[in-house]
């Protein structure tokens, strides 16, 4: 087991009280697995991605554990986490532009980063990896502003995986890119895993169609909890949670025309996480809801590798 998250709870502090962005999340990611983490805004997927590497100032670790390769990560302790960042867990952020210092040449940034982690510069290895993502070595002599969005994203991917971390978190890495660049970046992510540069990967995204292209398993979050986790193919073709089902049937596929087939959205809105209701949080929008939904359904395994948090999913 590469990554095991048990009962993780992370809250946001606000003046109106704690927002329960992650409310008891339990799952695991196996060695060599690419897990897609999908959900709408406010579902807690970004919070989960960040929790595994760095809590920002307003986030508070309330409960639960994160274990990576048998070692418990001190996620609530920013200083103690430093020893694990880049070496064991690494992150590719959404906006590569803001991750790179615009006044430094890429090469200098890389050697500074390596030095700060106590690793010597390995130019040959670096060049090999740049080549792997389709960049030539002279990007090292350029400034971030001289690169296109897709190139920058790939540079950041190379930098964040230089120390062969066990787990890579890719946070919405493709959402700021054009469709054609998206595809290249998505492929590179798979390549990293296939070559063993990273053991496992969590790809955070709002785009199920895209993550389905690269992930082995997909986890869907709703209102701070996990709704469903399943092999990518199964989740897309045979979803069991009503939320996943409605979400997938609301996606217009290329070629579907309004006249031929009018798709429907999901009426209603997710509950506020300041004071979330007891029981299943999708209850108010769910067509299948019944009395028992007032009780929180467990995240149970209904088929091999297929977990669902719904009473009606057996």
């Amino acid at each position: 087991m590469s990554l095991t998250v048990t009962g993780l709870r992370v809250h946001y502090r606000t003046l109106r009280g704690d927002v329960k962005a992650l409310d008891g999340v339990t799952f695991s990611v196996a060695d060599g697995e690419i897990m897609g983490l999908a959900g709408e805004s406010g579902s807690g997927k970004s919070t989960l991605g960040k929790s595994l590497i760095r809590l920002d100032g307003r986030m508070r670790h309330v409960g639960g554990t994160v274990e990576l390769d048998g070692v418990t990560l001190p996620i609530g302790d920013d200083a103690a986490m430093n020893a694990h960042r880049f070496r064991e867990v690494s992150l590719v952020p959404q906006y590569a532009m803001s991750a790179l210092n615009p006044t430094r040449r890429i090469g200098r940034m890389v050697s500074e980063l390596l030095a700060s982690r106590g690793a010597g510069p390995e130019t040959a290895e670096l060049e090999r990896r740049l080549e792997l993502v389709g960049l030539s070595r002279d990007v090292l002599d350029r400034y971030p502003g001289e690169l296109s969005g897709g190139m920058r994203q790939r540079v950041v991917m190379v930098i964040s995986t230089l120390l062969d971390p066990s787990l890579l978190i890719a946070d919405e890495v493709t959402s700021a890119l054009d469709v054609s660049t998206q595809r290249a970046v998505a492929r590179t992510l798979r390549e990293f895993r296939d070559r063993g540069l990273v053991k496992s990967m969590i790809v955070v995204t709002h785009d199920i169609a895209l993550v389905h292209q690269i992930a082995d398993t997909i986890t869907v979050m709703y209102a701070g909890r996990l709704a469903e986790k399943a092999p990518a193919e199964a989740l897309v073709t045979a979803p069991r949670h009503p939320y996943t089902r409605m979400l997938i049937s609301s996606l217009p596929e290329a070629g579907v025309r309004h006249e031929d087939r009018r798709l429907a959205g999901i009426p209603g809105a997710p509950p506020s996480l300041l004071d979330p209701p007891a029981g299943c949080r999708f209850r108010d929008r769910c067509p299948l809801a019944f009395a028992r939904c007032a009780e929180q359904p467990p995240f149970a395994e209904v088929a091999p590798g297929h977990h669902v948090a719904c009473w009606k999913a057996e």
Partner: protein
Amino acid sequence: MTTTPAVTEETPVPAVRREALHFALRNGKLVAGLVVVVVFLAAAVVGPMTISYGPNDYVGPAMAAPSGEYWFGTTMFGQDVFAQFVYGLRSTFLVGVLGGGLAALIGMAVGFTAGYRGGLVDEVLNMITNIVLVLPALVVLLVANAYLGVRSIGVQALFIGLTSWPWAARAIRAQTFSLRSRDFVDLARLSGVRTPRIIVREIAPNMSSYLFMTFILLFGGAVLVAASLDFIGLGPTQGVSLGLMLNNAARWSALQLGMWWWFVPPGAGITAVVGALYVMNVGLDEVFNPKLREM
């Protein structure tokens, strides 16, 4: 679309205002600065009403040290230093409000127009701003004061206002520039709203905290410049001000005669008011800028 989930949805605007107030009341710098300014303002407003004679009247014994009757003592000629001090505070606040206010008005007019219009208008206004900015303002004031003569505090405030606006204009221009390209400005244009209205109703409210801080800095600046002018003898020929008191004290060798009560109150008053304003400004910055907040 997937940024920190709760953050955007949990900070509605009334809450933003309440939040600002919440932090304002807990910000020591802001509260301390405000208390000092308010105490002096109260002295300037109420003080003169409690005194039956004018600040320059010869009412008591000459060179008397502070006593129960004359709290701050008297001058070499028997004028009441306390009376001069409270009247002087009055004119200090007046110069600050008028001079700082005028500079803020010009700065806003120039900054908003240049920033919103852009293009040629911006280039011309920018050129004028830069010219006024590089003029050694104090020298110009000296020359103007010396030749034209300054009789009243109003005229002095006018001179100060006309020379101290450029940095404010530049700052406001930069802010306007970044707000101008926001979608809600486009939407107002699509609603047929005219430019001046867009500036006043859409852009200015978004930088109100910024404008407020600009005014505070201009206010403090005007007080300082006025005091400097008064001290070197280019102050208003009528009335009394803290700077004029310092000037008189220096002229009649108060320091050498050991009459500390003549120059300490005005000097301390100017330092306290201007210092408190700047401290307030730092505090305000912390209140409005979440990054500087100490949680």
